[in-house]
């Protein structure tokens, strides 16, 4: 055989053999067979697939392999795992190191993971037993996950039930709200319609009155009628004067009957009586219808007053409804009252009337205002009228759009008598003020206080009236 062929043969055989040896070396090196190592032990009740040859990691770094697994002698025993760890890891491993069986990657083999110990632990010697932590099986995790999912599913079902309930409630609430809105809308519509009609009626009424249509219009605009009424009243006054004279005459006659000249004086009386009768006849004729079938002035007046009363009653009712609808009530709330006649004594005494306003009071004692009339009832005295004039002059400066309350006080008699007396006093004052001064009627009210402890200077129950003007807080002085 030529030398070249021998060399080739040697190269082939040697090279291939070296390659085979390289494979052996790589495997041995990977198995850490060419480094010094120590043998250690640990024990497990559950190996979870750990087997001889499995890798041993120290803090995640390849450090050795499992050498042997000894099967325990009985069911209570534990598998003893013998493994070797490279000598260089010895300083890391301590007596408090713990061995756990873990999976090498998601689809990898099981490995024995040794945790580094603490500096307080002693260094391990060959053959030492390392503490172990039993592995967590995937089946256990799955079981745990299934239980968790079931629990979560139950919770979700509960939450869903609660949400469904809430949604049902919300739907019910929405339906109720819708019904309420519809009903309120209906009411609002009716109120608006009533208000609109009332306004229209009032407009028509006022227009009619202004135009002189109807009884009231005629009454207001017909000058002739006014003159007739005025004349009638004048006649009535004159008749009354005559009657008074007759009465005086009768009294004189009576006196004179007791004395002398009776006949002459009787003639004069008869003459006067005839004259009075003639005037009374004219008065009655004025009141009777001019032609047969017609109602006459008294009938017209009665009908007019009745119609006006009805119209005003309806109007007042509509206005009352209108005042309380959403569109207008803001104004009345800001004003502090809807209707002064609707303010109860209890509310008034409790201070719930116009709480945002400041009262300006004028205390007027009964003795200053009233005198006892011929019928025994109280009536305003001339001094009282002058006093009220003084008060009105002062109030008028600020009375516009501010409520004026006439409080009546009476301390004599029983409770109902006190109320009636106080109401009569307040009404008398109000009527006088409204008659003489341009106060707004709907801004003037009466309040029968009866006998109550007042805030007058003496502190005693007041007997008389108190004229109270309620002023806005920013302008009122208060007293």
């Amino acid at each position, binding site marked *: *055989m030529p030398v070249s062929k021998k060399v080739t043969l040697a190269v*082939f055989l040697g090279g*291939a053999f070296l390659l*085979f040896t390289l494979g052996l070396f*790589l495997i*041995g090196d*990977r198995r850490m067979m060419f480094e010094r190592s120590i043998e250690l032990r640990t024990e497990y009740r559950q190996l979870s697939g750990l087997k001889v040859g499995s890798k041993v990691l120290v803090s995640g770094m390849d450090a050795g392999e499992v050498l042997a697994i000894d099967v325990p002698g009985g069911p209570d025993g534990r598998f003893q795992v013998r493994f070797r760890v490279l000598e260089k890891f010895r300083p890391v491993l301590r007596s408090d190191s713990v061995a756990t069986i873990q999976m090498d990657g998601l*689809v990898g083999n099981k490995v024995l993971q040794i945790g580094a110990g603490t500096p307080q632990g002693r260094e391990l010697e060959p053959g030492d037993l390392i503490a172990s932590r039993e592995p967590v099986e995937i089946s256990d995790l799955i079981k745990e996950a299934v239980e968790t999912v079931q629990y979560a599913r139950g919770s979700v079902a509960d939450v869903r039930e609660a949400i469904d309930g809430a949604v049902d409630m919300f739907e019910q609430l929405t339906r109720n709200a819708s019904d309420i809105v519809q009903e309120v809308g209906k009411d609002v519509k009716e109120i608006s319609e009533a208000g609109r009609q009332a306004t229209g009626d009032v407009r028509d009424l006022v227009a009619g009155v202004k135009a002189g249509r109807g009884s009231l219009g005629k009454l207001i605009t017909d000058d002739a009628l006014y003159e007739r009424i005025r004349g009638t009243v004048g006649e009535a006054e004159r008749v009354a004067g005559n009657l008074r004279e007759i009465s005086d005459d009768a009294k004189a006659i009576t006196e004179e009957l007791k004395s002398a000249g009776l006949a002459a004086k009787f003639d004069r009386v008869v003459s006067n009586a005839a004259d009075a009768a003639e005037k009374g006849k004219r008065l009655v004729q004025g009141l009777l219808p001019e032609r047969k079938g017609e109602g006459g002035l008294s009938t017209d007046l009665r009908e007019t007053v009745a119609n006006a009363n009805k119209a005003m009653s309806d109007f007042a009712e509509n206005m009352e409804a209108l005042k309380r609808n959403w569109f207008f009530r803001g104004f009345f709330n800001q004003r502090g009252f809807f209707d002064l006649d609707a303010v109860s004594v209890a509310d008034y005494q409790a201070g719930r009337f116009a709480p945002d306003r400041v009262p300006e009071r004028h205390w007027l004692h009964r003795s200053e205002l009233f005198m006892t009339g011929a019928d025994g009832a109280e009536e305003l005295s001339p001094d009282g009228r002058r006093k009220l004039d003084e008060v009105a002059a002062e109030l008028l400066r600020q009375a516009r759009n501010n409520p004026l309350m006439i409080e009546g006080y009476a301390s004599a008699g029983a409770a109902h008598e006190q109320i009636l007396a106080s109401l009569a006093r307040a009404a008398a004052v109000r009527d006088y003020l409204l008659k003489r001064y341009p106060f707004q009627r709907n801004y003037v009210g009466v309040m029968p206080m009866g006998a109550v402890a007042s805030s007058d200077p003496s502190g005693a129950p007041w007997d008389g009236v108190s004229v109270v003007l309620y002023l806005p807080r920013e302008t009122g002085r208060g007293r």
Partner: protein
Amino acid sequence: MVTAALAQAGDMLLFAARALRDVWRRPWEGAEIARQILEVGWRSLPLITAAGFAVGVVMSMHTRASLERFGAEAMIPAGLALALIKETGPLVTGLLFSGRVGAGIGAELGAMRVTEQIDALESLAVDSFKYLVVTRVVACVVAMPLLTTVTNFAGIIGGFVAETAVSGMSFALYFDRAFSLINFSDYVPSTLKTCVFGFIIATVSAYLGYNTRGGTAGVGQASTRAVVLSSILLILSNVVLVKMILFFFPSR
């Protein structure tokens, strides 16, 4: 026909037994064995290396496609090396070897038979069986594990080329991972079982060539049948060998 087949099988077994026996008998025929090793081993090296490299590249691509689904790309080198060393390398090498060497032995011995060269050797008092058959059997038995090692490494390198082209993995990390799952029990038995492959290929091919009949047509038939029969027997014997390896070296 069955009887004839069984008779031929028995004849082949006796041929193989004679080869095994004569290996240990003098003369050793060392020069001829060396020449045959060069012939069947060295000359097969380019084919084996190229085939092994290509197989490695292809296996790397397939392995990546499979392991990528599980997010286990890091296992590609280990999986590839394990598959190559345990089974693919030996089997591919055996099949290639039977195709090239088996056909050659069958044709060469068949030609020598029909041209009465074997008879001439016999007339010169040369043990033709020992000189022609045993030397080739020994050469195949020696060359097969060496060629298998070359195939394995060529395949691993081919896998690295494919892997680094995709992921840029370093050579050191690739080889570290490639041998991370391989044990001696995986490497040595799988490599050495190819000696059996070499013996089967050599004895079957030599038997068919040594007993060629029918002139030049018989030579062609012997060559073809040598490749087919040795390949079939190689694959069948692999089943038995793997079972034996698993029995003696159980998987850990």
